């Protein structure tokens, strides 16, 4: 039954995303980290533009994948949404309330509903705390969720939910494998019954066979608790598997955003096309036939990004216009008003569909 609702939601959303109320709305989010010079009289000499004007919506019960290479700002987005970093400008609306302006009790209440699962299951769990204490710690901060006498029982329920033996409450993190630790991290994320879980590379430290277990678990939990996931990862295959919609980031900007079919089968931004074509596909028969777009050079420094379109220095389509004018994230004029999967938002002056991932 849970499956059916999810499918219905997905279908509805692919058709007209405007009809449903988003649970999280991000508008023009900016985070600049100042670069300073001098010891005593620090003066700002520039800024690392980690996130430079990002907007997207997250709907109830959906998974929005965010992909991009290292340094594109995807992890900074996660920290901003958790209000672990203060945004330089921009807004994040949670149910209509701008959380970047909140503090104290109001912020605490919002944070209960937005939880996080971290990448590294080895460093994100305190080695001196038992598993029971780690998972139960959120209850210390939000005692209203579980009264004191109930906590141990609640922790054991959570362990059971994530597929660990409830008798392990008194063990320490080092007694668990990487995959089991990530389950502990997920149980901690679930403790306060949040609505949104922000997952920053939750499976990239795990071996393939264990990775599949954790992904299946996350999908099951999403159906069971109607969670919204913001799933940040660099592995494009995993993101396609788990996401309903996908956003591609490059140097602090959103390059392209759409449903998984729109992005993977009908990419219109050259960066998305290059990124997808570079992913090795586990099929040796496909290796001769596949077209590969090999980009030259490295990602430019976010402290000194190129003018105009940020991707122009590595783009094979770049023209003078790209250096002068920053392309806006919008449905390309080529496909405007048309009923085609190509009609989704893309930040390129010359956006055009190019299929790079074998025919779907």
């Amino acid at each position, binding site marked *: 039954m849970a499956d059916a609702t999810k499918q219905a939601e997905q279908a509805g959303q692919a058709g007209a995303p405007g009809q449903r109320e988003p649970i999280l709305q991000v508008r023009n989010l900016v985070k600049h980290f100042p670069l300073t010079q001098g010891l005593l009289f620090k003066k700002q000499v520039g800024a690392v533009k980690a996130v430079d004007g990002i907007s997207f919506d997250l709907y109830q019960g959906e998974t929005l994948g965010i992909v991009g290479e290292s340094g594109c700002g995807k992890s900074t987005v996660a920290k901003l949404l958790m209000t672990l970093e203060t945004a330089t400008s921009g807004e994040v609306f949670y149910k209509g309330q701008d959380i970047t302006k909140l503090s104290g009790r109001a912020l605490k209440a919002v944070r209960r509903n937005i939880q996080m699962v971290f990448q590294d299951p080895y460093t994100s769990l305190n080695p001196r705390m038992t598993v029971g204490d780690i998972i139960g710690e959120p209850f210390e901060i939000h005692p209203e969720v579980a009264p004191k006498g109930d906590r141990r029982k609640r922790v054991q329920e959570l362990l059971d939910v994530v597929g660990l033996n409830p008798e392990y409450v008194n063990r320490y993190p080092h007694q668990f494998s990487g995959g089991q630790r990530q389950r502990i991290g997920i149980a901690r994320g679930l403790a306060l019954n949040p609505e949104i879980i922000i997952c920053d590379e939750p499976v990239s430290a795990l071996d393939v066979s264990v990775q*599949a277990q954790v992904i299946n678990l996350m999908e099951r939990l999403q159906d069971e608790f109607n969670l919204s996931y913001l799933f940040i990862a660099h592995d494009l*295959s995993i993101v*396609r598997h788990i996401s309903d919609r996908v956003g591609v980031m490059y140097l602090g900007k959103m390059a392209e955003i759409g449903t998984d079919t729109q992005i993977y089968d009908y990419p219109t931004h050259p960066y998305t096309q290059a990124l997808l074509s570079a992913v090795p596909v*586990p099929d040796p028969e496909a290796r001769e036939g596949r077209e590969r777009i090999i980009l030259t*050079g490295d990602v430019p420094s976010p402290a000194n990004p190129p003018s105009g379109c940020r991707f122009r220095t590595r783009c094979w389509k770049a023209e003078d216009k790209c250096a002068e004018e920053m392309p806006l994230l919008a449905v390309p004029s080529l496909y405007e008003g048309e009923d085609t999967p190509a009609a989704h938002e893309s930040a390129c002056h010359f956006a055009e569909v190019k299929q790079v*991932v074998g025919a779907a």
Partner: protein
Amino acid sequence: MTQQYEKAAAAVPLLDVRDLHVEFRTRDGVAKAVNGVSYSVRAGETLAVLGESGSGKSVTAQAVMGILDSPPGRITGGEVLFRGQDLLTMGAEARRRIRGAKLSMIFQDALSALNPVMSVGAQLGEMFSVHDGMTRKDSRDKAVQLMERVRIPAAAERAGDYPHQFSGGMRQRIMIAMALALEPDLVIADEPTTALDVTVQAQIMDLLAELQREYNMGLILITHDLGVVADVADRIAVMYAGRIVETASVHELYAAPAHPYTVGLLGSIPRLDHKGKELYAIKGLPPSLTDIPAGCPFNPRCPRAQAICRTDRPPLFDVAPGRASACHFWKETLDDAG
């Protein structure tokens, strides 16, 4: 592809590892990291050694290179024949001359593999001054040529830079330059692109393949990435708990795996080209190397396990010419896959 095969088959193997055993003494007992691994590589051929962490894929490579940490590591049996000579019984000096010149290695983490207090030009040049006795000036020129060869922009100016001044992709190029400096016959690449972004990974794998063709090198690619393997390898050896559980040509293996572990691995990776349903997850965890299960080491996680799997350790059965599987039920596995 077939042409390449015939060519490779005609040649004598460059490297022939036979029944290699490696143990580590740990506080929890003896960890049997490598338990009778045999593989061979020919000139111009790429062998992918695939496995998860703890499968023994890197330890095997370290034993071949002679860079195993010992103690606690110890080679307890087997032979490593390089062009017919056993490296394990060779003197340290003779072995040092082969290492670097004939046999070299590319590591995963270039930042920790390169010397941080030596400029990259000096590190590359050292290869020539130590092995070929070149003068400082000549070796420096060679170093710049090498950097150009691996397409580092403005190589002459950058030769004086230190490793931390390069990006991850550029550092990996320097590692490759260093490994290929003396035009070795065989290169072992241990997860060469795991720490890199996909677009950079594609550049590096391209470069490696190009250089391999040019020098007709043998390449052992150690990886856990089934996508990379499908892209570049000729043959695959799948390792589990210190053993090879299946070897086959890359085409045969992906078309129809003959070991349940390989079936599980292939089923557990999400695909880029279609969305797919729930992933197939191999249940449980890889075994502890201090306590490897009796019989087939994969039996506690195997959907096909029978009584015989818990008592009798399966040898590598010949499945087809050049293809083997260490499963009592390889026939059934293959039938189901095909």
